[in-house]
């Protein structure tokens, strides 16, 4: 499969009155054509900042990309100017935001909000663009698109607005769609519809998707691969099966154990991860997760763990995978789901820096 996007050691920081906040601290991942990568993590883990950096949508200043590369089809976009980025945004990469109630302009007709991008990127005439807008609205499942195209956002329900938002994002056939918690603000039945729609459109248009969420249920539904982020770093990355059935990082264990499921009985308490994420103005020495980690080893407080490779596609950043580490058992809720996966290496392999 062809690589569409390659992120190498991305670092993003924000200048604030309290000091420099290192929101993203060395994130690397690839994305193939037509693939869906989910980025999961708590609020403040840097997942939104990472994705907005890909479009250079973070406010600069105070934010800036302090290191690393973002290669789109092999072309680094970090040094690109605003003018050059305007040609990429909407055309190569599009974005869907969390809250459809606020992400559409309230004083502009839906149709015009769709055609803007078309007129800019594809040099369409107004009439052609409008026809295409109607077509797009039909594509995203909005009934009576001829009428809807002339309506304002307040005349749409939340789910319909998110569909319109998807129509806007897909207008110019982007190669990459970034969905920043697109279903978080919607109720559950609508969530399912929107996820189905996105999967359906992805197969039709062959778009790659980066799906940002904190809902592991959604991840299982849509993603091919999953990256778990904590404190501005990817702590574990693998295919959906690897993350759900053979998680290796204690943070991923915590996330999975805190996920309620229908068949869990009422007597079992949901396990919450204790504490709060660290202050990224002064990231802690060693492993950022150590303070909240009941499996933390002495070395976790001293030295940052390296990345270990568990299979061709599965990586985890924890000292527990080191040959000298004591053998630990994951929590009960996670142990129940663990399965032996055929692709797993015999032993975790230390990933050399720079790979």
């Amino acid at each position, binding site marked *: 499969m062809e690589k569409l996007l390659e992120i190498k050691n991305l670092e993003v920081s924000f200048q604030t009155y309290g000091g420099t906040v290192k929101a993203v601290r060395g994130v690397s991942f690839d994305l193939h054509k037509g693939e869906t990568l989910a980025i999961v993590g708590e609020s403040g883990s840097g997942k939104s900042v990472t994705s907005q950096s890909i*479009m250079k*949508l973070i406010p600069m200043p105070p934010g800036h990309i302090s290191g690393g590369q973002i290669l789109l089809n092999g072309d680094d976009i970090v040094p690109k100017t*605003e*003018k050059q*980025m*305007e*040609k*990429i*945004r*909407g*055309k190569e990469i*599009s*974005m869907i*935001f*969390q*809250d459809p109630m*606020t*992400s*559409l*302009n*309230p*004083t*502009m007709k839906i149709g015009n*909000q769709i055609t*803007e*991008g078309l007129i*800019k*990127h594809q040099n369409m005439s107004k009439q052609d663009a409008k026809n295409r807008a109607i077509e797009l609205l039909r594509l995203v499942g909005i009934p009576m698109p001829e009428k809807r195209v002339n*309506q*304002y956002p*307040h*005349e749409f329900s939340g789910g319909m607005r998110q569909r319109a*938002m998807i129509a*806007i*994002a897909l*207008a110019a056939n982007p190669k990459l769609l970034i969905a920043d918690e697109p279903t978080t603000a919607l109720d559950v039945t609508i969530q399912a519809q929107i996820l189905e729609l996105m999967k359906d459109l992805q197969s039709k248009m062959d778009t790659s998707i980066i799906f940002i969420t904190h809902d592991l249920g959604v991840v299982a539904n849509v993603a091919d691969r999953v990256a778990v982020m904590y404190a501005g770093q990817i702590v574990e990355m693998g295919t959906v099966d690897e993350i759900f059935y053979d998680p290796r990082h204690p943070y991923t264990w915590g996330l999975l154990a805190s996920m309620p499921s229908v068949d869990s009985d009422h007597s079992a308490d949901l396990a919450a991860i204790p504490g709060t994420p660290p202050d990224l103005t002064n990231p802690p020495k060693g492993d950022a997760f150590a303070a909240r980690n009941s499996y933390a080893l002495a070395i976790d407080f001293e030295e940052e763990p390296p990345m270990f490779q568990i299979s061709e596609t599965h990586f985890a950043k924890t000292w527990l995978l080191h040959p000298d580490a004591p053998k630990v058992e994951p929590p009960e809720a996670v142990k129940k789901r663990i399965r032996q996966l055929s692709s797993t290496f015999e032993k975790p392999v230390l990933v050399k820096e720079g790979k």
Partner: protein
Amino acid sequence: MAKYIGKRLLYMIISLWMIVTATFFFMRIAPGNPFASEKKLPPEIEANLNAHFGLDKPWYAQYWEYLVRIVNWDFGPSFKYKSQTVNDLINEGFPVSFLLGMEAIFIAVAIGVLLGIIAALKHNRWPDYTAMIIAVLGISVPSFIMASFLQYFLAIKMGIFPVARWETFMHSVLPALALASTPMAFIARLTRSSMLEVLANDYIKTAKSKGLSSGVITVKHTIRNALLPVVTYMGPLTAGILTGSFVIEKIFGIPGLGAHFVTSINNRDYTVIMGVTVFYSILLLVSILLVDIAYGIIDPRIKLAGGKKGE
């Protein structure tokens, strides 16, 4: 829409009636009468004068007579300016005040909005600080002091504009500037804060993610949404300009309506007070109605009651 405007017109008439009634009775409660300020009149002459202007009738008869007259757009004779009716005074003074007011509103809105937009787009950089210093000065310096400053520097020292009087367009620049300074500053601050609010909105990020340039985003997505509070302010602004113009007209020696308003109160010139009050009230009510209609046009979320066309 027509139904809505009809309903609003009805409310306007009710408000006007209340204003007329309140003014009528408050004025009578105030001590003194139109002929009290001059040298003591012989009782017979005063009785004659009262009879001439109908002041000898019981209050309800006077009140009723006055209501009937207003409905016929006749504000009656002035008690002081013997040969003129109140209608004459309004017809003479209002065009001057109106011109001055419009000029001031234009300056206030044009410069205020511009300063606000620049300040918001260059948030926390020098253009922002400069615009806000101008705004703070405009708000805190009263218009009559501003007027004297303008007269001193631009007219007397530099000789660019005439000091006073009302003859050519050049004569109107200084009074309009003085009148506009406070509302302009207020509009600048209002535009800035509402621009900043709009700029922080998700739909601006959406617009940016479509690849639109910052110029297009500012014009098509930001300004329209940011101007809503400014439009709301236009109603009170008209009132402010009209009341503010009393002082300015006096300073610059402009023969507008404001001067009559002030002197008529001192003179207890009942018909002039009433006439000018009613006239200004109508202007205000109309401008508020216009603002509400404009609001409905700019913001599609605001459906004017009765206008259910889109349903």
